[in-house]
């Protein structure tokens, strides 16, 4: 019930392309869905997050699409750049309970943007 499944495991796109990373969850109590970016040797950094009351959220070149009925959400990176090369993690949490807000992460997608 706590799993978040992420795909693909790795992704190679050319500069300017639009990589898409997909995640699916099982726990219907999840109500907060962030995406994190992690560079080698660094901790995850929050990119963008969405709550289930909206179907899409954009911040700069990053867009989250959310499908509540399918229990799926995805990250799109517009006009990708070599500097976007990193590992991306989707995550989910239940913020309606005692408030611990623990994050359940996907296994990550290693993105390589080639010039």
């Amino acid at each position, binding site marked *: 019930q706590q799993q*978040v499944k992420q795909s693909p495991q790795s992704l190679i796109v050319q500069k300017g392309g639009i990589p898409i990373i997909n995640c699916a969850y099982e726990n219907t109590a999840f109500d907060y869905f962030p995406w994190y970016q992690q560079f080698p040797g660094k*901790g995850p*950094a*929050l990119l963008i997050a969405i709550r289930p009351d909206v179907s899409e959220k954009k911040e700069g070149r990053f867009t989250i699409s959310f499908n509540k009925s399918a229990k799926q959400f995805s990250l799109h990176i517009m006009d990708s750049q070599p500097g976007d090369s990193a590992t991306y*993690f989707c995550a989910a949490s239940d913020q309606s309970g005692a408030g*611990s807000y623990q994050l*359940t992460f996907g296994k*990550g997608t290693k993105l390589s943007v080639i010039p």
Partner: protein
Amino acid sequence: DAGVTQSPTHLIKTRGQQVTLRCSPKSGHDTVSWYQQALGQGPQFIFQYYEEEERQRGNFPDRFSGHQFPNYSSELNVNALLLGDSALYLCASRPGQGFFYGYTFGSGTRLTVV
């Protein structure tokens, strides 16, 4: 404004030993969580501390314990180290009250058990 600070950066321990990792949360944050990230995997929740008490715990054995101090800093202790405990240990902080903007993660402590 310093973010989350973790020490040490790297650590090598022998199987069976004990280790203590340290974390200073971001200024203004009073809630600290610890995560274990194995190579090639996503972070897994270990436990969370707020007001110096463990508030929630993930699926980790009692060999993993923690502490939070009055200044909100935290320690993660692991006893009887196993080879499988080799991982990046991440500390994350957030404000305990108010609107939830998201966690801030530190750069982690890379623990190698040999």
